[in-house]
Every structure is written in C-alpha cells, then in structure tokens.
C-alpha cells in the first residue's frame, strides 16, 4: 500500500509538471470537441492526432492520447442529450433518456449529471486500474471464445429489459439488428456475405453510421417537417443544475455504472457500447419506477454515462499490465508507445514506472480538467437549443454527414447513414424501438465468431461450454435468469412490460 502511494506520488510529480499538464489539457479539449461532433468518436480522434504526437516523448504522447480518449467520452453525451444524435457509438443509450430530459427542460441537469457521473466513474475506475491492474489483466486473459459467448448471450438478455413496448416487436428489432451485423467478410470461412461487390462493406455496416442514422437522422426526418416546430422548454439559468432529488436519484446508478463499466471494459474485445447497454438494463431492472425509462429517467443517463467512462479505464488495464490491446483504441495507444521506443509488455509497469504512474496520475488530473471544462459549458450548450429549429437541423445534418464521412473517408458510410435514417423514420412511425437494432448490430458478429471459434477449438463438441468453469458459470446464470423470468411471467399472468404497453396505449388514446 505504502509502495503504491509512493509510486502515485512519483506519478503526480510527473503529471503535474506544467508541460505534461499542458498536453493533458490539449488532449482533453480536443477530445471533448471530437466527442461533441456526431459520429466522430475517440478512435477517430486518436487516429487523427496520432501523427501530432510523434514529435513528443512517450509520456507526453500517451497523456495527450488518453486525454482525447476520455474527453471524447465526456463530450459524446452532449449531442446525445441535446439533439438525440449519438456523439459516438457508446452514447446511444444516453439518447433515450437524455433527450427526453432535454425536452422536459431538464437538459442542463442531464448534461451536468452526465459530466459528474463521468468524473466520478473516471476517477474511481482509475483507482481500480492503479491497484488491481495486473491481477485483473490476468483474469481478463482467461476469457476465451467460450466465455465470451456465454457473456454475450447474457448480454442478449439485456435486450429484454431495454424495451418498454411489445416484447415481440423488440425481439423483431433485435433480430433485424443481428441480421445487419451479418454483412461483411466471414472471418471463419472467407466468404463475403451480403456485400454485393462493395469492398467497403467488407468489415460490415459500421456502428457509427447506423447509430447516427437510426437516431439522429431519423429524428430530423420526423421533426423537421412538423407543422409546429418542437416545443423545447427553454430552461432558466437557475434550472440548469440538477435538483437535489435528481442528484439523489443518480447516486446509486453512478456507482453501479462505474463498477459494471470497469469490469466490462477490462475484457479484451468488448466494446464500450456494451457497457452502456448493460448499465441501462441493470438500472431499469433495479429501478422502482421502470416506466420512467425512455421518458426522462435520471438513472437512464447517470448509469450509462458512468459506465462508458469507467470502461475507458478498464480498457487500459490489459494494455498497461500485459501489453495486449483490448480493442482498436488501446491498439493505437500501444502503437504510439512503440513508436517512441517503449515496448509495452508485462514488464512495462516495472521497467517504466514513471510512464505508468505518470499516466495514471494524468488521468486523475484529466478527469478534473474535463469536469471543469464541461460544467460551465452546460449553459453554453443548452443555448444551442435556442437556435430556431429550421436553421439548426441543416447544421446538424452537415455535422452528421461530416462526422460519419470523416471516420473512414468513405462515402459508403454516408449512404448507410442515410438509408438507416429513412429506416429509422419508418420504424418510429410504426412504433418500433430502434435501440435493439444497434445492440444487435454490435453483438451479432461477436456472438457468431465466438460460437464458431469455440467449436473450432473443441473440434465441434458443444461440451466445451460446460467444461470450462467461467463459461459454465455464466451460462448457468443466463439459464437461471431465463427460468426466473419465465416463472414470473407465468405466475403473474401478465408481463410487466405488457402492462406498461397497455398503460401507454391507454395514455395515448386518452
């Protein structure tokens, strides 16, 4: 313990050096900017600024890139809350309740809760990173294809808790999303599926164009043509911050989101978006008023936003402790380290303590910087809503198309966004939820790959799933949940969701 504190002291002495502080600040600023832009997420931001780091030394480069990474996570919630456009893929869940809160005039509160939740999650998860990096990393390594499959099947279950309407409709949307995830090259056999000669579709439909299209573009298509422009309650300055009640409601979700996000972030190969989906589902399940979700539940913003920020720290655990990239973003950071001659590996923490601890300390500092940056900006951002909608929406369209194009420099992405926008508009009209589509799109390739990899590992025997302890336990939990739900369904006669749906229909017709 004492050693850790001593190391942390070393870290802070490195991190608080003015030049390093400067780069952390630049990183956070750029990250927030990048996050606010629709579609352009942390990966795009880091890739864009990677060349700029080549002239710096290793510590400064990593500190700046990390600043961009979680700065983007902070910024991503802004457009989600104010305009229902995901700032990046992981902010999709914030679009649901965050935007609803903004419509009710609580936009400022939502932004503040998102910022504070992100801060708490970011800081606490760094503690986890600091104290538990090596043992956690080892645990994460034991997750192989069978364990992933079990975990992802559990994640599919999350879908059941996301919908507030008809179960069949959400399942249909999930199946649709899962099917969308089947587009692209099949990693196991080399076949191009449903790509029809378009090489850019080889890696599948990107999450970013689909999410921005289904949520943002669909929203614009639906509201731009309304006879009366959307009536956004313009809040007074006093009402910008959350009420005491709202703070109380967000405390526990922030805590749960932090833990969940961190654990999910550690697993190599998991995406941030999964941590926010799972957090949303958990909050909805544990809430005393689940019918509020989708209409402005504070927990629906606090939980997912905290989760995706602590997933950021979680993702760095395998990277720093083992030198293994857990996803594309840590891979870029590893490359940045290699370019500077730092070879990441299991001995990094021992060989370059000033890098590791300086990095950890700068993350603390960065989170504080971001909180200071974001809170006052809440007032500024909310004022964007004052712009008349007829001028606002073309600007949003331009930004969305720009963001989606900039990620890969591909016009195909813009087409996907447009088509999914139209699809999203139709789905809204026909009363279907679009969040399950995005989740399906993300999960499908992972589920399929894990399943086929597991079978390749075991030469076709399904027994592998129960022979391995972690996978067996997870599958057991999933089975238990299924049985519990069936039991509750049978017992109560009516699923609470169906009751909700009926209540909503009653609301609409009255």
């Amino acid at each position: 313990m004492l050693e850790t504190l001593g190391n942390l002291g070393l870290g802070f002495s490195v991190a608080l050096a003015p030049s390093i502080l400067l780069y952390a600040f630049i990183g956070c600023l750029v990250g927030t900017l990048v996050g606010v832009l629709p579609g352009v997420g942390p990966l795009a931001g880091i890739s864009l600024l990677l060349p700029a780091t080549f002239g710096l030394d290793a510590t400064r480069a990593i500190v700046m890139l990390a600043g961009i990474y979680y700065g983007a996570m902070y910024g991503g919630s802004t457009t989600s809350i104010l305009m229902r456009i995901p700032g990046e893929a992981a902010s999709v869940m914030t679009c649901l309740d965050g935007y609803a809160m903004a419509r009710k005039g609580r936009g400022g509160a939502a932004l503040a809760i998102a910022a504070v939740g992100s801060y708490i999650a970011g800081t606490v998860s760094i503690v986890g990173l600091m104290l538990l990096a090596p043992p956690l990393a080892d645990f994460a390594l034991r997750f192989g294809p069978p364990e992933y499959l079990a975990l992802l099947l559990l994640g599919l279950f999350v879908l059941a808790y996301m919908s507030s309407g008809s179960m069949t409709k959400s399942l249909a949307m999930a199946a649709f999303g899962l099917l969308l995830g089947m587009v692209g090259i099949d990693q196991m056999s080399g076949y191009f599926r449903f790509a029809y000669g378009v090489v850019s579709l080889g890696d599948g439909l990107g999450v970013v164009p689909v999410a921005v299209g289904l949520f943002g573009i669909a929203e614009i298509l639906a509201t731009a043509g309304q006879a009366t422009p959307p009536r956004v309650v313009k809040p007074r300055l006093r009402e910008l911050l959350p009420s005491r009640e709202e703070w109380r409601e967000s405390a526990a979700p922030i805590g749960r989101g932090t833990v969940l996000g961190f654990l999910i972030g550690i697993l190599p190969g998991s995406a941030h978006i999964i941590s926010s989906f799972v957090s949303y589902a958990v909050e909805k399940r544990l809430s005393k008023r689940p019918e509020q979700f989708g209409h402005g539940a504070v927990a629906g913003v606090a939980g997912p936003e905290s989760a995706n920020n602590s997933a950021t720290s979680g993702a760095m655990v395998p990277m720093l402790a083992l030198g293994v990239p857990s996803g594309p973003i840590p891979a870029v950071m590893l490359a940045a380290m290699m370019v500077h001659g730092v070879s990441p590996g299991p001995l990094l923490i021992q060989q370059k303590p000033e890098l590791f601890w300086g990095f950890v300390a700068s993350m603390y500092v960065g989170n504080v910087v971001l909180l200071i940056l974001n809170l006052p900006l809440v007032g500024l951002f909310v004022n964007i809503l004052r712009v008349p909608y007829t001028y606002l929406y073309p600007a949003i369209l331009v930004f969305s198309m720009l963001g989606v194009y900039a990620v890969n420099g591909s016009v195909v992405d813009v087409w996907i966004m447009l088509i999914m926008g139209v699809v999203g508009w139709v789905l809204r009209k026909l009363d279907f939820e679009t969040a399950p589509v995005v989740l399906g799109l993300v999960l499908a390739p992972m589920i399929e790959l894990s399943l086929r990899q597991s079978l390749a590992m075991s030469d076709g025997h399904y027994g592998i799933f129960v022979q391995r302890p972690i996978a067996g336990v997870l599958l057991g939990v999933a089975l238990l949940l299924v049985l519990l739900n069936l039991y509750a369904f049978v017992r109560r006669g009516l699923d609470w969701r169906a009751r909700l749906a009926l209540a909503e229909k009653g609301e609409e017709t009255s």
Partner: protein
Amino acid sequence: MRARRALAVAAVLAVALPLVAGAQEPYPSRPISLVAPFPPGGVADSTARPVAAALEKVLKNPVAVVNKTGAAGAVGMQFVATSKPDGYTLLLALSSISIIPEADKIFDRRPAFTVDQFAPIALISADPTILVVRTESPWKTAKEFIDDARKRPGQISYSSSGIYGTLHMATELLSHAAGIKLRHVPHAGAGPALTALLGGHVDALASGPVVVLPHIKAGKLRALAGWGDTRVTALPEVPTFKELGYPDAEFYIWAGLFAPRGTPEPVLARLREATRAAVAEPEFRAAMDKLQTPIAFKQGDEFQKFFDADARRLADGVRKVGRVEDKK
C-alpha cells in the same frame, strides 16, 4: 466574324495552356498521399509514417499518410489500384497484396484488384514470422512441436489474424512443408490472436516478432522457429525452418511501396531514387530502430524477384487451403 475568331483562339488557349503547364510541371509539386490500408496501430501504419516523413524530407514536398481501412486491406489497395497514376497516390502494402486477389479467385469473385495493377517501387522491411508457444507448453523445440503434431493430427490449435491473413498463410505454409495438420482458430486481427495465445485458449501462433518480443523477454512466451531466410536479429538462438529442413516454410510480413501501374517512368524513377535516399536517412533508421523492425531495402530487379517468388508461394498456399467450407 471577329468575335468567333477570338473565341476560337481562346478555346485553343484554354485547352493548350493547362496541357503545356501540366507537361512541364515538375514532379512533385503537390502533396503526395501515402495510403496505408490498415488502421493506425498496425504494422503497415507504423511503417508508413517514418517512410512518409523521410520521403517528405528527401523530396522537399509534403507526403501525408492516409489510412483507408477495410476488408483486411482490400479497400485501401483497391483505392490506389484505381486512382490516377500521376505519382501523387502511393501505397504502402503488406504481403497480403498477393493473397487477396487469390482469395477472391477461389471464391469466384471479381477480384477487388490484381497485383499487376501496381508498379513496385521498393521493399522497405521484411520481418519473418516466428512460431511462438507459451512457456508452460511441453514443446521446447520446433522439432518436438512438429513431431507431436504428426502424432496427433488436428489436435494442436493455433490462432491467426483472420482466414487467408498473413499469420494464417504462414502457418499453412509450414503445415504443407512439414506434412502436419493443425487446428485453425481464426480471430479478428493480430491483437486478439495474441491475446488468445497468452490466455491459453490456443496452443501456438505465428506472429511478427515485434509484438511478441516483450513477452518472450518477460518469459511468458517461447519462440520455437522462424520463417525467414536468416535468423531474427533480436532472437539469435531461434533457428529458422529452413535450417530445420523445411525450406518451403518461408514467409515474411513485408512492407513495400507501390504506385498504380501507368505512372510515368520518370516519376517512378524519381520515387525510387527518393526512397533509396529516404531509407538512408538517420531519422528513418532511428524510427525503425525504435519499432525494432529491421530495414530490408530492396529495389528494382531484386525487389521484383522477391515479390514474384513471394507472390507465387502465397498464391500456391491459398490455392492449397482452398475453400475451407468445402473441405468439411
């Protein structure tokens, strides 16, 4: 009458002037794009950046790295193959450039591009892959590994970065050369493939040396043999498969500079000369040293020979692998 003549003169000038100006335009006079077909963080990108910086210095002209990712490199490669051959769009390709068209062929697909759509400029680096296993595994030498594989065909598993990817093809070449059958578990990229090995979910991996060196030094992984012509400089005690009696198991994850075919000869000559100078730049050498990637510069006929031999080997290998689904 007067007006019509004036118009005709103007028209002629409008057409002729740009042509004349263009013909006399020295190369290079505009920023050059060096397309890296893989995302930042990978071998292609990490090699492309020092190359771009060094070329920029030598040519005294901006050279920017553009990432065009997708489909295991096919998107970027197709992009350059179909771009204007004026010398302002170049490609830093990996050995997969020879694999992708072959894979397309065996699936009866119209190939995304063909190898002859490119004009080779130079080879920059050629890292041989090495076979790594965990230190806890029972095989201490490559011989033990191969013997065990012969005794238990299809039981020893290995991961790769994806089907028909570089790591897969390397292992396939070994399997054919040594007459063994291994179990392939494809992953979505080199990172996940390494993670799977470290976590004990597969038994072996053919990997580029750079990413596994820290793990070998830390005692987590053991290198059994390499696919190169010579031993890896950082691992002098690791034999090559050639030494062990399998000369057909030769595979390099090489990075080379290409231009679209049809680029005028003087431009190509200028680029070749510039690359030769760039590779000698001390900053470039320092950068590659930091990446721990040895420079293996080849040009002209030497590169062509290397490229052709490599392409033939890989095409053969891909054809032997065939369509995995058909073999079940």
